[in-house]
């Protein structure tokens, strides 16, 4: 058991669902949600601003018990939906 959160071996579909759910609850640009694909940049599409991005990162870290390295890795790894899913999948729970 990891104290950081509800750690599960989730697949990409479940991770995507979790992220989309977060976006539905928090985005200021709901219209952009209808066109989301794995190539969508969550920032440039206006789905998230910097405060929402903090919320999403914190949510995913808690939910999946992971810790992202936003200093060493390019930000594109975290703001493009498909890349973000791969980050969650690829990082071992800490």
């Amino acid at each position, binding site marked *: 058991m990891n104290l950081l959160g509800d750690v599960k071996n989730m697949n990409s579909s479940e991770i995507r669902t979790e992220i989309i759910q977060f976006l539905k609850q928090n985005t200021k640009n709901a219209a952009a949600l209808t066109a989301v694909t794995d190539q969508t940049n969550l920032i440039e599409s206006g789905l998230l601003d910097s405060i929402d991005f903090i919320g999403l990162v*914190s949510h995913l870290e808690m939910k999946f018990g992971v810790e992202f390295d936003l200093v060493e890795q390019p930000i594109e790894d*975290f703001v493009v939906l498909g890349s973000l899913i791969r980050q969650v999948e690829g990082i071992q729970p800490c």
Partner: protein
Amino acid sequence: MNPPIESSIQELFAAALSGGRASPAVVTRERTLTYAELASIASALARQFTALCDVLGGPRLLGIYGGQTADTYAAIAAAILGGGGYVPLNPDFPPDRSAFMVADSGLRVLFVADAEQESFRRLQLLLPPGLTIIGMPRDSAAVAPGALPKADAQTIAYILYTSGSTGRPKGVRVSHGNVTHYVRELRAEYQFTSADRFSQLSDLTFDFSVLGIFCAFACGGALFPFGKSDKFSPVRYVRSNALTIWYSVPSLAVYAQELNMLKPGSMPSLRVSIFCGEALTVRTADAWQRATPTACLDNHYGPTEATVSCAWFRWNAASHQHEYRNGIVPIGLPMPGTTLAVADPQGNFVPPGTEGELCIGGAQVCLGYTDELRTRAVFFTRENPATHQRERWYKTGDRAVYNTALATYEYLGRLDSQVKIQGYRVELGEVESVIRKAYGSDSVVVIPHPIEGGAAKGLVAFLEVRPNSPSLEVIVAACHAQMPHYMCPAAFHFLNQIPLNSNGKFDRRELARRCEEHEFERNSH
């Protein structure tokens, strides 16, 4: 040997822009512009600009419609080299707002950056007749050579628009003399050199951008404009560009702190960090300093009307000997050439230790607003109690006190309903005015929320329910059509009745309290 005392920005730029230097002036992801290239492009553009001004008349001002691209910075240099000033227009702002700025500033010449030709079409339909549009010169050598006019200390260097309580933005006119003084003081304090690499995070309509642009070009350093995604990865941006000079609003440091980016020693290249524009908490200052152990960290204070910043406070290990009001780093003492004084409601300067309205006098107090009536309301001439010279003063609307124990000024809040969102000034009255018009009712209140570390993170609107009112979508669309993104409320709540206080006015405190207690369901859009 003492450095020369320049009297205009043209003179400040002279050394860096002459001699065909191959060192970088502006570095973006797409392009690096050397000083030799910058000088060539800016000189050609300046000659085109001044020739048009001579024919068209009007103020010697170049409107600049562009983002943070190399040609936009070349256009700024051109406006200055041409003995004039610039009016920045942000392509992300609603066209109506930009069109107002064009008309209000009396622009006759407008530069449109290459990358913004497409978005410019929406604005072009709204522009007044008689405006000449120019772009990057395709062949710098083809522009007829000629001497460029000289600016003097009173020449406008830029006009920046801030939120206005009456529903119209205010155009702040800042002179070459103001900027020259500001750059000279910062250069003396921080010893900028051509080896320095400056962050450039603010869009050009925000006066904090002035620090990087003018200090970099004055010392021959390099400017590194933020890419859109860099904003989300500020520490990586510093590291990958080996930046030496950082300046930003504290919100960005808070953001990096929230995402655990501020690891100790993670930004070793920085030698100067400057924060300005909103409250800097002790907690954030400490975290930033741990991440930048070899850099000095200064908290600056100043309104656009006093040329970016005019007071400063050095944060260091010794700072921890004291307790600070509300855990906020003080705003410090005036820079050389500036005087601060606190006034009572009658306008009399009060002794140290007494709270009141902060007034600023001295070399950085700007020329005033484009609207003379507004200028008369907040600028005045009075004897400086320290020098006994009569000088120009500005009433900031900020509540402050001189703390005699700490020997520093402290910021206490606003006297009016102005707030800062990510460092941008926002008059709640302007936001309410837009919503009231769209909603067709005066029963509208906007408050800042949430507030974290003394800084507002966003706005929330409250509207009293009324029959046959426009839909939320219509109101949201009106906000986005007329105001920049940072002025648009993040949530709208419809109440049967907006609470009133004992004076019968809308009870903003009660609404804020209820927001804090999460009483309102968020109604996202």
